[in-house]
């Protein structure tokens, strides 16, 4: 073997290339540096390859070990499943089966999102996005909260919560008892008031645990917020259909619910108070302040991957496990049934997907919104009620007409008004 000991190899004349004709090139523990490498690089590469550009082809790679794999600015998962990653349902705020309800109701408005509030007045609507950064990422709707009546009282609050079914978390791939396993929460948010707001996670099985984290917004500016949250050995999540994990975005908590002893960005046993540190109350004290939310994603892993856009039909079906509404204009029919006697009718309403548990029946609440039809249409004189429900069916009816039915007569329950509706609800 011949050994060439030199400090530099340079091309001759004005050339720019040095060609090495060899089967193997070994640099030992040294670094091989050049402005440009051409040809094929084969064998074991154990050092750092930096500055790759042009169109190099990497082949024979059996694994990529990195905590953050990003391609053209897009983050790829580093844990959890490669599809169905988003544990949040209706994160894009597309589905609004309750559309038309009073905007000031405390409870559910947009599907799966529960609005909680006390003090002052407020209104919730689904709004349409037409421009802006979330629009550019494919979002067309957002949850819109208006603080119509300001209140900074100690018992006032505003929060937007999604309760995630426990078995969806238990089977997600998050090793939630390990501090080395993470979930990442990301969302787009905009407020008319610049200040610090909070997100809050709360588990519900075993000894409840809570996690709070702050984020700051500039006024009237859509901001993408990302929070990576570790597991904790005190977390319990059952593999059942109960409430496993609450994810809340909090515009305001009054001081009845807060204290600066609360430690952010760490799990701790849930107590009330404090659920969060004391909050700036500028937003709460501003009449008609707004708070907008969309693109909410909770996924296993420590990186926020692109939002998992789902088709309207897919998202609606997921929502219908918790709420299913049918409504119609006057003359529309809901379902068939049988008369038990001259005044009593019962029929079966079928859920399109298996619901979480035996659902509650919700009706538009006015008897004259409904009719029982056989050879004629008879307006109801009582609101239909629930006789029995399973996750797939609901037996609905009662003594709902004054007279006219015949025992064992087939009949239909239908709508008598554009305001008429029936809904099955199995929310957490």
């Amino acid at each position: 073997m011949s050994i060439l000991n030199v400090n530099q190899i340079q091309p001759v004349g004005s050339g720019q290339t040095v060609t090495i004709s060899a089967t193997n090139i070994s640099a030992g523990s040294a670094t091989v540096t050049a402005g440009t490498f051409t040809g094929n690089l084969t064998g074991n590469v154990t050092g750092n390859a930096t500055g790759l550009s042009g169109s190099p082809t990497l082949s024979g790679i059996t694994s990529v070990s990195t905590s953050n794999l990003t391609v053209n600015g897009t983050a790829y998962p580093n844990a959890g499943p490669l599809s169905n990653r988003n544990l949040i349902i209706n994160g894009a705020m597309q589905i609004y089966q309750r559309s038309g309800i009073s905007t000031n109701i405390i409870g559910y408005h947009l599907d799966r999102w529960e609005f909680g509030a006390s003090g002052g007045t407020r209104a919730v609507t689904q709004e349409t996005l037409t421009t802006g950064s979330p629009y550019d990422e494919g979002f067309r709707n957002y949850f819109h909260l208006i603080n119509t009546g300001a209140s900074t009282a100690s018992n006032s609050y505003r929060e937007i919560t999604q309760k995630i079914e426990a078995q969806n978390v238990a089977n997600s791939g998050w090793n939630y008892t390990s501090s080395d396993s993470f979930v990442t929460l990301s969302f787009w948010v905009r407020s008319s008031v610049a200040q610090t707001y909070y997100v809050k996670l709360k588990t519900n099985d075993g000894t409840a645990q809570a996690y709070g984290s702050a984020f700051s917004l500039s006024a009237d500016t859509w901001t993408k917020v990302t929070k990576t949250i570790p597991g904790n050995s005190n977390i319990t999540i059952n593999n059942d259909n109960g409430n496993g994990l609450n994810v809340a975005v909090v515009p305001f908590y009054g001081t009845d619910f807060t204290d600066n002893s609360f430690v952010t960005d760490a799990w701790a046993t849930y107590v009330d108070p404090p659920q969060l540190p004391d909050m700036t109350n500028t937003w709460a004290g501003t009449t008609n302040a707004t708070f907008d939310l969309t693109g909410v994603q909770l996924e296993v892993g420590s990186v926020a991957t692109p939002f998992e856009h789902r088709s309207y039909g897919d998202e609606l079906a997921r929502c219908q496990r918790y709420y299913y509404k049918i409504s119609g204009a006057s003359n529309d029919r809901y379902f068939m049934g049988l008369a038990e006697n001259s005044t009593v009718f019962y029929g079966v309403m079928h859920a399109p997907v298996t619901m979480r548990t035996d659902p509650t029946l919700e009706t538009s609440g006015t008897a004259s919104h409904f009719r029982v039809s056989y050879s004629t249409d008879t307006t109801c004189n009582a609101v239909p009620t629930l006789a029995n429900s399973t996750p797939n069916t609901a037996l609905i009816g009662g003594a709902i007409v004054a007279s006219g039915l015949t025992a064992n007569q087939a009949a239909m329950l239908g709508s008598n008004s554009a305001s008429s509706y029936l809904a099955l609800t199995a929310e957490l």
Partner: protein
Amino acid sequence: MSLTYLQFNYYRGEKCSIQATNGTAQFSIPLNSENSDYQEYLKWLAEGNEPLPADEPS
């Protein structure tokens, strides 16, 4: 959701659900402990509120 509980509903003589209202809509709540509306009713009872009268079926 804040509900006012109205009465029990009966089906063929058996107590089957609780009728309630939020002032606009009406609700029939099944007597199932996994149902969150029924859980709220039980919580309301535990807070010392008067149970619904055990009416005879209408």
